[in-house]
């Protein structure tokens, strides 16, 4: 960790002890039902709190349309990482490099003689209507059209040539659309049952969600290096990314947030 920054790595490049720390943090969070726990933080995104920003929305309710998909999720996974490190100071959020499918870190059902906390989590939402009390589900690539797939590295690299933030983030074929596709592919549908990554309500309960968004965040960072750290519509800058204590301008520089991405292939 240079200059006190956390160095985020690709999940399949983690050392044995690094992966063990990640698993330890997730396992501990999954055992907590208070506001330190896995269900609490997953519930910020979908059921029951629904804070997340996707596509375009308005602030205030009748104001102009904004697309805060990238800034909001950067704030979200930063808070997630803090909560994670509260449970294990050696844990660092890694990114999922999509191009090779789902890494074994997330598909192994057991690790070290215990259930793998990166494979699934338990959703406990007794106050949802209807209540939810089950393990997460994942049917990657099943029951979805061929157009719903993982991207190629070339498709992602082409995004770096989009010079305007809104075109890069939310335009046709932009990063959010690629993100949507990966959610659909990862969740999948089997026998009429949808995987949890496929919808906003339950996506963050799947342990792979966090590394999916770490990859999204990293791609935005690489784009920023080419197109400007402050490349953002001016009217977005002071929008508050509730429920987090950040405005959009506060999350533009990842070094100011205390982390960096390890050098590696796109």
């Amino acid at each position: 960790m240079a200059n006190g920054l956390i160095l985020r790595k690709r999940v399949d490049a983690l050392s044995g002890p690094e992966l063990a720390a990640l698993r330890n943090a997730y396992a501990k969070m999954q055992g907590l039902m208070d506001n330190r726990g896995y269900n609490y933080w997953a519930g910020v995104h979908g059921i029951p709190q629904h804070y997340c920003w996707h596509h375009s929305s308005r602030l205030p309710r009748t104001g102009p349309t904004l697309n805060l998909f990238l800034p909001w999720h950067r704030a979200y996974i930063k808070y997630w990482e803090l909560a994670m490190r509260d449970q294990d100071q050696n844990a660092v959020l890694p990114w999922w490099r999509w191009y090779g499918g789902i890494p074994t870190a997330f598909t192994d059902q057991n690790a070290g003689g215990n259930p793998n906390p990166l494979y699934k989590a338990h959703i406990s939402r007794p106050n949802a209507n209807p209540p939810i009390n089950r393990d997460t589900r994942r049917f990657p690539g099943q029951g979805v059209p061929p157009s719903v797939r993982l991207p190629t590295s070339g498709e992602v690299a082409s995004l770096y040539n989009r010079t305007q933030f809104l075109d890069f983030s939310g335009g046709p074929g932009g990063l959010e659309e690629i993100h949507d596709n990966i959610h659909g592919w990862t969740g999948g549908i089997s026998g009429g049952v949808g995987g949890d990554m496929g919808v906003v309500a339950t996506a963050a309960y799947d342990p792979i969600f966090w590394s999916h968004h770490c990859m999204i965040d990293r791609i935005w960072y690489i784009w920023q290096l080419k197109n400007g750290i402050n490349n953002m519509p001016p009217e977005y800058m002071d929008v508050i990314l509730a429920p987090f204590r950040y405005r959009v301008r506060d999350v533009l520089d990842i070094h100011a947030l205390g982390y960096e991405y390890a050098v590696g292939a796109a």
Partner: protein
Amino acid sequence: MQGNTYTSQPISAAEIPLEDVSRVDIEFQQVDDAGASFEGRVFLNNPEADENTDLTPENGYAGSFFIFGHGGCFGDEGHCEVDTERAFDPYDPRRSHPMTPVETSVEATEAVQRTASEGGDITVTVVPVITGLTEQTDVENVFKHDLHPRIVAYELEVETA
């Protein structure tokens, strides 16, 4: 798995510029993201299109957009009802309802120009192919509002000395 399709009112092709444009988008308003996740396959002048229709120019395929939906309502009665007619309140700092319908678009330059060059009116049909759902998802009624598709042409950039 597909939901009910949406087909627009006819749009006059005469109003669409065919020359000196660099890009043509089809923009959609009021796209519901409270329910299913889906791929919205956009067809021009093909109201009979469905999820089995080949994505070819001959079938009027213009492109797809993707919606990451909430999956349906898991709240109490009224939780996911959005009051889109709510009057502006300068003292209300809250963001819009998370289930507020969204705006999206597809880039459809070739498809629009090809169809417009044939003259007459253009209809826009969207076939929602389901990509994510829960037990609370209404997979049939994916579109709850008129999408008011709008064809937007961007002029070529003018070079200056």
